[in-house]
């Protein structure tokens, strides 16, 4: 009796591990294929497209890639400017707005908060046509600003920051700063922002990744090659000029994944904790 329970336990434990290992491999397999094939020649890939080990054609693949329109450095720089700018803007001004909602008593405070809750889920793609026409009229297409400035109004982040402030900011501190003669804006920058650091870090990671991966708006706004972001650069690999250059397509894809991999595996613990935290705010 005891034995049979133990065997059935062992079996179910084995199933758990087998499934978990299978799912982990399922996450890794496409990227492993990608990295390995990036080092293999088109001929090798056509002979056998599953290469589990690296080959020695990385340089020749790079030469083919570089000789065409794909330019990872330009994409990297533009994506960096947009993601960094948008992240700083979103984190700073969301904190400021959240502070306005928590630290001060004003007449429109509750209506304003209700409004933020109402637009929390408003998807930007719904008004993309009007946005594009507006930018077209003020000659802001092929400009990085329309991809950065809108991040200043990030309702979901304001909501998150407000919850954080309500839980962590002792209003006494603000009062004593006032008694010491600190101006309101100075108090926010010097006393409140440092308290918000953990929340800001979590939100910054996600905003950065989301902006880095953004595709729709850059695709409609940026038509000049020197303004392309990383995802737009990637979409060039889909074109006919790379039709038979499998090795370089894999290499181009690898170059866009590599920075994300580095960031992810360095910060994985914080990122996963951030996803969990985001769920609990509900």
């Amino acid at each position, binding site marked *: 009796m005891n034995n049979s329970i133990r065997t059935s336990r062992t079996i179910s434990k084995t199933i758990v*591990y087998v499934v978990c290992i299978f799912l982990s491999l399922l996450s890794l397999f496409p990227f492993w294929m990608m990295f390995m094939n990036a080092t293999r020649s088109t001929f090798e890939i056509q002979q056998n497209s599953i290469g589990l080990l690296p080959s020695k054609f990385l340089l020749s693949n790079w030469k083919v890639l570089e000789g065409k329109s794909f330019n990872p450095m330009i994409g990297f720089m533009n994506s960096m400017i947009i993601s960094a700018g948008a992240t700083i803007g979103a984190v700073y001004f969301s904190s400021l707005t959240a502070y306005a909602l928590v630290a001060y008593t004003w007449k429109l405070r509750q209506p304003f908060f209700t409004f933020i809750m109402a637009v929390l889920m408003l998807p930007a793609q719904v008004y993309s046509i009007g946005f594009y026409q507006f930018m077209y009229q003020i000659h802001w297409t092929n400009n990085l600003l329309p991809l950065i400035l809108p991040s200043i109004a990030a309702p979901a982040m304001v909501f998150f920051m407000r919850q954080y402030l309500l839980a962590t900011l002792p209003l006494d501190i603000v009062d004593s700063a006032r008694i010491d003669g600190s101006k309101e804006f100075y108090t926010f920058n010097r006393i409140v922002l440092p308290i918000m650091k953990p929340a800001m870090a979590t939100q910054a990671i996600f905003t950065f990744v989301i902006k880095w991966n953004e595709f729709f708006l850059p695709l409609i706004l940026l038509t000049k090659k020197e303004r392309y972001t990383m995802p737009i650069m990637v979409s060039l690999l889909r074109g006919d000029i790379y039709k038979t250059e499998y090795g370089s397509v894999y290499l181009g894809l690898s170059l866009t994944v590599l920075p994300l991999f580095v960031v992810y595996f360095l910060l994985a613990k914080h990122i996963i904790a951030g996803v969990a935290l985001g769920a609990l705010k509900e």
Partner: protein
Amino acid sequence: MIMRRKTISYAKYGYIFSIPFVLTFLIFSLYPLLYTVLIGFTNLRGLGFTDIKVLEQPFENYKLILNNPSFQKSLFNTLYIWVVGFIPQISLALLLTAWFTNRNFKVKGQGAFKVLIYMPNIITAATIAILFHTLFGYPKGPINDLFLKMGWIDSPLNFHIQTWTARGVVSFIQFWTWYGNTMIVLIAGVLGINPTLFEAAEIDGASPRQIFFKITLPRLKTIILYTLVTSMVGGMQVFDIPKLFLLGGPDNATLTLNVFIYNQAFSGTYLYNRASAASMIAFLIIVILSAVMFRILRDKDAVLRRKWEREERRRQRVEAREVNA
């Protein structure tokens, strides 16, 4: 009295500190939204078009869009791709949640599994779409080679020209990039449940299966419905994957709402007015579906609360009777 004057004098900073948010929202969200609504009623089409007029029949664009077979198909595709991706997504996430939160058996290496399972979620969707396009290549491609080696198929499959395989791969990518996220959210939900509930159930001799279905699952209802709503809102807007995987093809099988809107406005036809009308219809659908789901969510909660209150009253009555006796 002094306190009151103090709060009044600082109130203006509430307004001042909200100005950047409000201005940005007005300029970059509200104005474009109203402008999109307006364009939907006009004849705005083509590049550099300046003579914009509201149509004599303002709803003409809406009529044309609603009767457009491609639009109808894109609506169907969007829902289809979302449902086929979401069902395995939530099921697998629940299963993994049950395993990773099992109190009798701690899965070793859990942290590493979570890191790997969540990983696809942060990789650029554009990259993933093109990577899968290449992996599912025909007649030679890693997936075809793998399936042939395993003996699952006799000859290479052309995933890119069959409706069901093309849509299936898009759904699979959606599932594969999101089930890890759902799992993390659900695990956080389980960890938020009061542990004494589980302890009490264990003392009463409940099996892990009973605990999961009778305690964990009912307590997760709010989070599951929240996942459902956010996934649906995201699913209605899916663009990067279908756009880059097969450009909406084959035969419009992966044409989603947003790919349709993009094609109307930006791929040579410049029908901004019809694209706007289509956006507004999509928006309306999102609002209605979310409202329906929130209604269900709230009603379920209200039903539970009423039930609890009823039981509470009954308990009090019983207690009162016992006291009297």
